[in-house]
């Protein structure tokens, strides 16, 4: 275990920063990129105030296209813009982007392999009070099933900004899932995202938690407690769900007795599914998936809902102990 990195060291660099929503980081990064690159265009379907594309819209009205409430048309229009050499960022809520426009994403983005960046906000249960109709819990499963697309779930504002820069230079379809609420910083200030490279905070000898999005912070809290209680636990931020970082997964699996996946998504088809698919074929090991257990969400505050559905460090700790007993 020569490569052990103390997670506390990383977090120490960021504790002075106030929590920030990933969608806010997206809006600011788009604005900055828009100043540097005239080939970036942005599309939205009547939610630019919420997705934060309104910052870009205000600065570059000629390169911003509001399609009104029509997600299917937005995705098709984005593909057309990409085919004239533009880099279109098409944004709306995750549930509408991936659900409403699934066939459009399939045909004119993925199958046609157009350079469209689908950046959706309001992913997951932390949408909160709006309730189940607005809580995308299956978007990653939907996107991951499509060939040609890269699927990314940033953990915080730092990573979001780096992701948006990286995918601007990358040619090909990308889906990025962002969230509504403010989330704490977890990544080091100098962190640079690379597609397909997980960020290993630490490899544990007993348990490794593979987390994405807001669950990275929650996983770290769980790992600290477990490690203090004598169960050596590591955390990996698997921000690229597809293509998944097989090398890091294998490393984590070989080092430990138990893998726990943690995601703000259904346990079916998302990060948990991707990890199980890979490990069951390549290094069968005990796995437990933390996520939404095949149910729709409901209204409530983000904190209440995270507790209700067990997306908590307490549940991770309990799950780890329970699994290790067997």
């Amino acid at each position, binding site marked *: 275990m020569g490569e052990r990195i103390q997670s506390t060291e990383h977090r120490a660099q960021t504790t002075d920063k106030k929590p920030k929503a990933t969608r806010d980081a997206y809006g600011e990064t788009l604005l900055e990129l828009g100043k540097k690159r005239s080939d970036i265009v942005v599309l939205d379907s009547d939610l630019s105030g919420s997705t934060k594309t309104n910052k870009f819209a205000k600065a570059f009205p000629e390169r911003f296209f509001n399609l009104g409430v*029509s997600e299917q048309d937005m995705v098709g229009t984005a593909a057309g813009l990409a085919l004239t050499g533009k880099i279109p960022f098409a944004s709306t809520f995750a549930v509408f982007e991936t659900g409403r426009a699934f066939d459009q994403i399939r045909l004119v983005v993925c199958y046609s392999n157009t350079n469209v960046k689908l950046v959706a906000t309001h992913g997951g249960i932390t949408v909160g009070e709006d309730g189940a109709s607005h809580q995308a819990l299956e978007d990653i499963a939907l996107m991951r099933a499509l060939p040609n697309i890269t699927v990314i779930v940033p953990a915080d504002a730092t990573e979001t900004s780096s992701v948006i820069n990286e995918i601007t230079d990358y040619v090909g379809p990308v889906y990025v899932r962002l969230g509504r609420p403010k989330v704490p910083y977890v990544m080091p200030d100098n962190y640079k995202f690379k597609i397909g490279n997980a960020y290993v905070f630490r490899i544990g000898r007993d348990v490794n938690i593979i987390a994405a999005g807001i669950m990275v912070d929650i996983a770290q809290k769980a790992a600290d407690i477990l490690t203090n209680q004598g169960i050596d636990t590591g955390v990996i931020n698997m921000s690229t769900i597809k293509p998944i970082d097989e090398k890091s997964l294998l490393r984590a699996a070989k080092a430990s007795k138990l893998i726990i996946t943690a995601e703000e998504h259904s346990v079916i088809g998302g990060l948990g599914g991707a990890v199980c698919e890979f490990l069951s074929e390549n290094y069968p090991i005990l796995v437990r998936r933390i996520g939404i257990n095949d149910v729709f969400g409901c209204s409530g505050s983000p904190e209440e809902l995270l507790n209700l559905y067990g997306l908590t460090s307490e549940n991770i700790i309990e799950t780890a102990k329970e699994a290790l007993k067997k």
Partner: protein
Amino acid sequence: MELVTEGKITDIKTLENIAREVRINILKMLTAAGSGHTGGSLSAADVAVAIYFSKMKFNSKDPQWKERDRFILSKGHAVPLLYAILANAGYFSPEMLITLRKMDSPLQGHPCCAILQGIEISTGSLGQGLSVANGMALGLKLDKIPSRVYCIMGDGEIQEGQIWEAAMTAAHYGLDNVCGVVDNNGLQIDGPVEKVMGIAPINAKWAAFGWHVIEIDGHNMKEILNALNEAENTKGKPTVIVAHTVKGKGVSFFENKVEYHGIAPTQNELDRAIKELSNG
């Protein structure tokens, strides 16, 4: 016709001859494939030939030429028509046409832009082409390139809601570089369009959505050319050409037969069809 950088064939007889060749190739490739969509490929043939060979700027030896005009076959099942035209225009050898629908052929059952140059966007799931056309038109306007985007839709296809989302978008952004065509042959797989799900009044619908509407006989080359010119000269709004056509046009025993929406000719039918077309 190896290299075409400007369509610009305005002689009606020449265009009609190209359309006849294209129809024969459509039938040959469908017969070789043993499956595919005969009726809708034949109904849209005259309009598509006129667009490509009288109006469009393109260079088959430089398919990604930035200043080309774009053609989108939103009713992707009529792709034998597009393949026959692309072969005629020099994008690939006409000998390749008989590989339609065969494994390892770039001539997929529905158009795939990722594997065949000349196809601007993959289609096949109906209702999506016009949105893509709008995106291209917006991109061209941003780059101040005066190219045009043509999009052929089926009349059954405009039952798709996304067509009307795109219709709003084109009008909202004043996309006068978009020219839509509705191939109004009146039939869809399950029967007459008006019986399956009425779309009438077509003209009034497009007009209400802010489009300039031109209604023509879609098999009259002179009317087609006039309409394409009128579309090009219409500024500030998109134009749609509602082309009244006959499903299976050009082969008497296929015409207006709903059964021939989705089946290929037999060898015997092909021989008779070629005889008819050659004598036409």
